């Protein structure tokens, strides 16, 4: 079994990377990990030159990455969440997979798992990645989310800025409850005089949030890796049984 991990998170050694690698490890398979921000995979140009060849004509790193995808039995894809959606790195990669879809649905039958990390709306991202890979005929074996370090923890002025991410996703600004305050209770105290986009007032209780400190999150990643392994072995067994009957 061959499994590849693809991270659309541009941060070095990010939470997204950690979770993808955990899943890869738990498959016990031959694995490779690629970080889209280390290579060049640009957006689709909608030229439709891939209709008959299923090969994208753009001359960038998707040329070899698409071969890695084709060789893999399973794909683990992870993204950070920016503005409530997958990173543009992830988005561009998934658009380019479209070249393999036409007529033949070349990625059909592969197994896949998705990971999204964010401060809010990461469940929308993992769901979207699952839908997109599902449109490529892949079977989504597992998907997971985790809370990451808000960039406002590390920018240097987050405690007093009027526009931090928890204010951008606040009920006052979005009309929706993303539960940011609740899910960051041990990391962030939003002070009573905070008023989104007018007056920023918060206190940090931690410098960062790492999935490495959250055993239940890591356990979920391991579970997904194991599920990929089991699924692959079962499908191989089923294929073998069918062969015997012939």
């Amino acid at each position, binding site marked *: 079994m061959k499994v590849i991990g693809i991270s659309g*998170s*541009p*941060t070095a050694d990010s939470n997204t990377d950690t979770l993808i690698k955990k899943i890869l490890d738990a498959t016990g398979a031959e694995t490779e990990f690629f970080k889209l*921000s280390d290579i060049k995979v640009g*957006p*689709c*140009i*909608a030229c*439709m030159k891939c*209709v*008959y060849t299923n090969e994208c004509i753009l001359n960038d790193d998707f040329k070899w990455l698409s071969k890695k995808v084709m060789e893999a039995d399973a794909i683990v894809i992870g993204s*950070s969440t*920016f*503005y*409530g*959606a*997958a*990173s*543009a*790195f992830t*988005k*561009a990669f*998934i*658009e380019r997979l*479209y070249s393999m*879809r*036409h*007529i033949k*649905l070349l990625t059909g039958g592969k197994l896949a798992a998705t990971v999204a990390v964010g401060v809010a709306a990461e469940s929308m991202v993992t769901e*979207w990645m699952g*839908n*997109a890979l599902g*449109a490529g005929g892949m079977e989504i074996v597992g998907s997971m989310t985790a809370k990451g370090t808000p*960039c406002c923890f*590390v*920018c*240097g*002025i987050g405690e007093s*800025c*009027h*526009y931090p991410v928890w204010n*951008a996703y606040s009920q006052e*600004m*979005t009309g929706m409850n993303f539960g940011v305050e609740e899910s960051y209770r041990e990391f962030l105290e939003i002070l009573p005089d905070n008023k989104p*986009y007018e007056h920023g007032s918060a206190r940090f209780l931690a410098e960062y949030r790492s999935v490495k400190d959250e055993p239940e999150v890591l356990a979920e990643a391991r579970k997904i890796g194991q599920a990929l392994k089991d699924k692959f072995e079962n499908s191989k067994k089923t294929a073998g049984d069918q062969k015997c009957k012939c």
Partner: protein
Amino acid sequence: MQVLGISGSPVLNSNTDRLIKTVLDATGLEYELVKLSEYDIHPCRACLGCANDNICKQQDDWHIIENKIKECDALVIGGYPTYGTLDSRTKMLTERMYSMHHQKMLNKGKIGVAVAVGIGRGIPSVDHAADQIAAFMEMEGINVIGKISGTGNITCLSCGYGGPCGISGVPMLFGAGAIPSKDKYTAIEDQKEVIEKANEIGCKIREMLVN
């Protein structure tokens, strides 16, 4: 330049481009339409090098677009859905505009319009893409005065494959057994309500900026 249109569609003179242009024309003001696919821009690398001075440290064509954004009073951003969410080029633009967010919120108070063109015909992805642009604008403190969704053409109409395709989107949109044909194409100009709405929003931009 008072009004800036930005299109994430890579297709030449696309329905997305023309819908944005309809809004821009209706303003009667000086405008420019920028097509992202003609520029070399990349996703945000989350380095936070922009946190203090609001200037992205990546050296690419973003800085050309950034200067145009700084100059304009109204911003009309148009994209299209791929796999149900906003295309990666328009997404890149939103991510790179984040450099203007920190501390000063440089685009706060500008007028914003979100435009999207998708396969439509009851498929909700086009509204989702427009909502995504509008939500981004609101996070940037931009005053979103309108969202417009138009109907474009599914790639399966123009892919050129004449044979039976098990994954064609044509039957999904036009009914079982439907095959690609010229009469199934749509142009944004033929969508009266969409054009009317674009004109109305363009006029509203003018009213807000001139009066």
